[in-house]
């Protein structure tokens, strides 16, 4: 039954397509609306995928990396650094640990102070980068040991500043999905309006068709096929334009947020789903509008 209805509504039917006159304005409106929505959908999808990727990476880094900051009088820094490294060497869950060289610390500060900062003249703490193993480390226990062995050492697991960023990235990903949903609903609403306009413009045609014995599937099929095809064509064009725009976005440093907007690997295939989804939305919206209109006629 459902398959028959779908077949009648989608399969080409010259008779049905002939009896309903073409509607130029609504045709152009539907193609444009579907195209614009698909273009936006590509960006919403790219936003979701990119922010999801970013959140995953930040979360992984949050879980795998900690830093130990050693602030001590200049004559004790080296000794406490060695003590920290020794403690880390004996701590379960530490995959590797190393003290950052002065050049590396200078590179970290360069964005704020410039490349020529005289590090040796600044009372900077010594940094030890710790990479955790898969099982993780006991941060509370490590803090206690560091307090005993190297009083100037402070364990920073980055959670204070990175966790809100991860939350923000996740929220952005959610916003992207919400935007996609809204785009779908808006597309359905616009196509429903266009379909209603077409149905109203053809009210007399529909009445005559009913009077000569046409079933609802025949009449609705003429409108559904047209709007589904228009939705598909518009969404395909909009998706192509959207993908091109994403490709042309400036691709900056790795890990950049806005400059990292886009797809990776097989992710580039995900926008291909947008045109068929657009066609499905057009099909459902037009079918509902047509059957609602027809239900008002005997």
């Amino acid at each position, binding site marked *: 039954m459902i398959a028959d209805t779908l077949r009648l509504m989608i399969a080409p039917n010259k*008779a*049905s397509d*002939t*009896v309903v*006159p073409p509607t130029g304005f609504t045709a152009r409106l539907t193609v444009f609306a579907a195209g614009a929505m698909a273009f936006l959908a590509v960006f919403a999808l790219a936003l979701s995928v990119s922010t999801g990727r970013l959140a995953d990476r930040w979360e992984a880094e949050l879980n795998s990396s900690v830093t130990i900051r050693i602030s001590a009088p200049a004559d004790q820094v080296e000794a406490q650094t060695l003590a920290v490294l020794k403690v880390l060497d004996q701590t379960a869950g530490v995959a590797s640990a190393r003290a950052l060289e002065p050049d590396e610390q200078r590179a970290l500060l360069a964005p704020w102070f410039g490349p020529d900062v005289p590090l040796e003249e600044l009372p900077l703490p010594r940094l030890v980068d710790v990479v955790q193993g898969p099982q993780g480390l006991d941060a509370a226990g490590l803090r206690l040991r560091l307090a005993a062995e190297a009083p100037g050492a402070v364990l920073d697991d980055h959670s204070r500043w990175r966790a809100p960023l991860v939350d923000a990235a996740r929220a952005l990903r959610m916003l992207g999905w919400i935007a996609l949903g809204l785009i779908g609903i808006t597309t359905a609403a616009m196509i429903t309006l266009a379909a209603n306009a077409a149905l109203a413009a053809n009210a*007399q*045609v529909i*009445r*005559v*068709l*009913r*009077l*000569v*014995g*046409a*079933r*609802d599937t*025949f009449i609705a099929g003429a409108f559904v096929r047209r709007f589904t095809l228009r939705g598909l064509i518009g969404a395909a064009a909009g998706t192509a334009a959207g993908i091109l725009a994403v490709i042309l976005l400036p691709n900056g440093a790795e890990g950049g947020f806005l400059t990292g907007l886009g797809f990776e690997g097989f992710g580039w295939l995900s926008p291909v789903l947008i045109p068929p989804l657009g066609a499905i939305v057009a099909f459902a919206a037009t079918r509902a509008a047509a059957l609602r209109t*027809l*239900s008002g006629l*005997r």
Partner: protein
Amino acid sequence: MRRIRVKDEQAVIELRDTSYSYRGGELLLQGMTLQVAPGSFHFLTGPSGAGKSTLLKLMYAELQATGGAVTLFGQDPRVMDRNAVADVRTRIGVVHQDCQFLDHLSIADNVALPLMVQGKPVGSDLHDLLAWVGLSDRMHAFPPELSGGERQRAALARAVILSPDVILADEPTGNIDWDMSQRVLQLLVELNKMGKTVMVATHDIALIRAAKPQVSTRILRISNKRLQSAGAEL
């Protein structure tokens, strides 16, 4: 309540104490009882606004009775689903006063419309039918290009292309001259002689009188919202 019984055969259309009011307002038709036998020829007359078109609409299920019952081929349209209503309409050809054509289609396509919506092939029958109504040379014209008489004949051709059991004609000669009215009447009489049930709503008494010598007719009149037999008076 007067019961007008046309024939004893099973009625193709039956009204039982049928009433109709628009959206629960004043009754437009009241207490109508009628059995239309297959193969019969009826005229339905009465003054303008009496409810002739409304009664015909009840007979092809465009309207539903608000009181009593109407049955079409033994089925009550009020309990039929939409597909069943569509199917029963393939057995009832309707000629509307304003013809109800689709102006973007040629006359040939308009006449073939009932075939097209049924998914049936449009074959040589269409040409034969257009020849029968005298429109072979106008088949590629569009409805606005036709005269009133041509439009009525095309509407009649569309009404019969599926070879329905019943033909309902609503003022088929209302907008055409006398000679053309005779031509349309002749076509309706021919259809009746082929076994079709015909009901013609008209206020043209001269048309009814012209039909009497050609075919056995029953004449019904709507008066004071009720259906009466009017044969003797005419």
